[in-house]
């Protein structure tokens, strides 16, 4: 390719694939080193130290932070609550997303409008504005309690109850199924119509077609959505911060909020770094488990 140019000339050098490739990738390489790699290493280092903002040096304390975590009631509770939040919200969210995407595949001029309608919560759900609305909907005299009292039930003190406080947050996460739905919808469009026709000739019923054709064909996309939604559910911050602030009695202390509090409220940077490393390990393990088990339920075309 470069034979028209003299080897060794400057423009020849600048046109070599390895040079062009690195030049174009430079923003990422710079960002990866500065904003991912170095912070991760620093975070690992700080997790073994006693460090706070303003202190000149980080005192090395060995595994003290990690040992303290094992005895930290709030930390243990935040892990339990976060797992509960993720384990309930993600499957529900994906089921809704898949169901609605499936229902909305019919050829209809209205489908785009409908999809947009269902997408609106995803569009605005991450904002503080909607979080504040949510807080108000579940307030003592809020909308949900009005519905309950109209139906003859008692008011529920949503954010006053340790057992219930997490559910408005879960509902809010499920409510935002739109973005997963759109990815599912795109995947559904790519399933060859001939599969369904063949199944129909063989006399397959509707549910059979769904479980035998739609689900297997969609399984790589289910995997993608599952991984991405699990990760983002683990990182939920704004909703917990704005709506409940972690209360009552830490019943909605989601992990990210807990890390934030330790770092920026109590200024225990070292301790917070240890927490974020535990989070990284837990999440990597969960992602790994998802990928490992995916072998048994994800079908790729290559496997035939």
């Amino acid at each position, binding site marked *: 390719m470069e034979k028209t140019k003299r080897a060794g000339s400057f423009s020849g050098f600048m046109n070599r*694939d*390895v040079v*062009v*490739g*690195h030049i*174009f990738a430079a*923003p*990422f*390489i710079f*960002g*990866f080193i*500065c*904003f*991912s790699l170095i912070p*991760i290493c*620093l975070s690992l280092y*700080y997790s073994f130290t006693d460090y706070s903002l303003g202190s000149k040096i980080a005192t090395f304390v060995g595994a003290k932070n990690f040992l303290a975590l094992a005895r930290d009631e709030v930390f243990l509770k935040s892990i339990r609550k976060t797992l509960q939040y993720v384990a309930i919200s993600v499957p529900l969210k994906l089921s809704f997303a898949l169901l609605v995407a499936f*229902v909305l595949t019919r050829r209809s001029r209205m489908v*785009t409008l*409908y999809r*947009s*309608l269902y*997408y*609106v*919560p995803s*569009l*605005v759900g*991450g*904002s*503080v*504005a*909607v979080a*504040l*609305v*949510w807080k108000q909907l579940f*307030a003592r*005299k809020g*909308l949900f309690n*009005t519905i309950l009292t109209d139906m003859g039930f008692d008011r529920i003190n949503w954010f006053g109850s340790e057992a219930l406080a997490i559910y408005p947050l879960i509902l809010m996460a499920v409510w935002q199924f739109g973005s997963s739905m759109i990815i599912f919808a*795109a*995947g559904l469009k*790519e399933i060859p119509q001939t599969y369904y026709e063949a199944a129909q000739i063989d006399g397959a019923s509707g549910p059979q077609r769904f479980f035998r054709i739609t689900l297997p064909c969609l399984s790589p*996309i289910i995997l993608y959505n599952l991984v991405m939604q699990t*990760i983002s559910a*683990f*990182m939920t*911050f704004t909703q917990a911060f704005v709506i409940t602030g972690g209360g009552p009695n830490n019943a909605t202390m989601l992990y*990210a909020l807990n*890390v934030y509090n330790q*770092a*920026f409220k109590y200024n225990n940077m070292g301790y*917070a*770094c240890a927490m*974020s*490393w535990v989070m*990284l390990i837990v*999440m990597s393990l969960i*992602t790994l488990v998802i990928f490992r088990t995916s072998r048994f339920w994800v079908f*790729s075309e290559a*496997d035939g």
Partner: protein
Amino acid sequence: MKEKRLILKILYHTLVLALGFLMIYPVLWMISGSFKDNAEILRGTLSLIPAKAKLSNYATGWKGFGGTTFATFFKNSFFVTSVATFGTVLSSSLVAYSLSRFRFRGRNFWFMCMLATMMLPGQVIMIPQYLIYYRLGLVPGYTPLILPNFCGQAFFIYQMMQFMQGIPKELDEAAKIDGCSKYAIYWRIILPLLKPAIVTTVIIQFYWKWDDYMGPLLYLSRPKSYTASIAIKLFADSASVTDFGAMFAMSTFSLIPVFLIFLFFNKYLVEGIGTSGLKG
């Protein structure tokens, strides 16, 4: 038979619409709340139509707090969001071009790094990042909110790479024969053809940045520099009795840009996110 079909069709559309209405009800409730007075909101009425519609909430809300009006907050949000979105599009498309068009030593390594950052939870690196910026004297300030977006974002790089795979290589070859360098190919061939992917990126990144709360919460400390999302939360906290009408008014206002972008480009978004390449 035909009648049965029609009834089923009507049933389908009614059901889908009803559920859709339920989905956007909280948003509608917020918008209608911005025209209600405080007492009416606190009563928790289901009605979307205010008993007595009034615009004064917008005037009250706009005044903001501590002498800073929402004009400042929205201006700040616009600044951060537009610069960061521009940076994301530029840098992500550069990186995507590199990773999808060139097979060079190190390419696979960087590609793996990119996939890894896509799955790396942001909170894990949040604290050390903060400490670095702090040491560099960039806290408080806008730099930490904007600079990382000029370094490519894995999610968008990946999307753009998927899209570039669909741009025929023959176009590159033809341009090369016509004397285009590999740099000119990016500018003259790839970038113009990348438009649909760019639009998707702009939409998604715009509302991610616009809604971003944690970033401004960490890196901004002077009220004059607050973005709208921080300001709304503080507005809710500032008075002992929250003026919900005014708060909803500003909340509604803050969602207008997001809705506008969505309305204009929603076709790209609803159809644009492809899944090609996710298979197998």
